[in-house]
């Protein structure tokens, strides 16, 4: 079930990938779970100014994904911005049908240097261990919730930091966005004003006891 992929010729692999499974409210979820060595990070779907998106492909089942949980921001020397995950991350798939699944996943793991890695994983979806369920539900809680831009400015109760993560389409079309917390409000600044028409952005809302993500679309119902 658990496959260890040696990313380099070291004793401890930098990234260990495994399949995690859960049935949540009747829906079967599959996660590709990555455990990442301290100080290293792998990448979100938009990796930022360097890096490479983590990829996972499923075969043998009918599934939708990967769904990426919201990322963290990494500032590299020279002011290079990366979007990704440290410690651990889980890419999610909503499984419609099928039982025997094969996962092919590739990642780039970086610290000062970068090392590509990959794993081929197999699992059957007829067993849902509690331990795996915890990992799946934790990842689900970090998946950005779709919202309309009109929710901003947002009451900043418990939120002390807000960071923007542009989607690839938003960024490619030249949109820029910043978010900040001021006067108990989270304020979003877009340039041009209709920049969200080019693609959504993800906003990370964080405080001492809070971490959640929203995916901001121009209007309600523009979500999918």
């Amino acid at each position: 079930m658990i496959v260890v992929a040696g990313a380099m010729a070291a004793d401890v692999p930098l990234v260990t990938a495994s399949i995690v499974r859960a049935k949540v409210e009747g829906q079967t979820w599959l996660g590709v779970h990555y455990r990442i060595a301290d100080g290293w990070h792998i990448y979100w779907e938009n990796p930022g100014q360097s890096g490479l998106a983590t990829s996972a492909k499923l075969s043998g089942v009918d599934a939708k994904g990967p769904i990426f949980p919201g990322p963290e921001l990494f500032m590299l020397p020279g002011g290079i911005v990366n979007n990704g995950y440290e410690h651990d991350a889980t890419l999610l798939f909503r499984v419609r049908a099928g039982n025997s699944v094969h996962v092919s996943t590739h990642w780039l793991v970086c610290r000062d240097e970068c090392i590509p890695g990959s794993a081929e994983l197999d699992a059957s979806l007829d067993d849902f261990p509690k331990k795996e369920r915890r990992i799946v539900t934790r990842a689900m809680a970090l998946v950005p919730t779709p919202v309309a831009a009109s929710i901003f400015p947002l009451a900043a109760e418990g939120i002390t930091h807000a960071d923007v993560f542009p989607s690839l389409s938003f960024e490619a079309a030249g949109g820029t966005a910043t978010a900040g917390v001021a006067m108990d409000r989270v304020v979003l600044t877009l340039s041009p004003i209709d920049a969200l028409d080019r693609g959504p952005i993800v906003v990370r809302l964080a405080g001492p006891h809070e971490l959640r993500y929203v995916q901001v679309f121009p209007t309600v119902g523009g979500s999918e």
Partner: protein
Amino acid sequence: MTLALSLFLAVAHADTAAIGAPAPDFTLTDTDGKSVSLSDQKGSTVVLEWFNPGCPFVKYAHGSGPLKDLGSTWSSKGVRWFAVNSGAPGKEGAGLETNKQAKTAWSMKYPILLDESGKVGHEYGATSTPTIVVIDSAGVVRYKGALDDSPMGEGAGRAYANDAITAVTNGGKVEVPSTKSYGCSVKY
């Protein structure tokens, strides 16, 4: 957030190499100790290839991927191709000896320019290796971005950089003048 933002803006402001704008001039020294200025290349198409011989994407591209021959082939057709290493001293892939060895190992028939202060890298907004910048014979930036759409050979095989160089040397339009680079961060 404030820190992240200000650093981001610092990079954004320093990046003056916009598509359609004059390429910022520079003078750098290559691994043979020879001084190279962009302003001396006017009249020729220039390609800048951000380079780090320790980066797996660069290793792949030069070892068995598209850069195995691309730069040397275009160089033989009169294109002035330069690898640029903006790594700071002591960082991965930086240093004269390391780059001399890479040039020999990969039979690179064009200069590697050392930009240890990172000044030129910042002026061109280079954030990852490999990143390709194509400058036409009038000194105007015509392409900036990824080598191709296939990191480590995995992709559809669309050769953005080669397509851009082909268009520029033929006096044609660059269909895709800007793409998102992938790869290792430049080791500023």
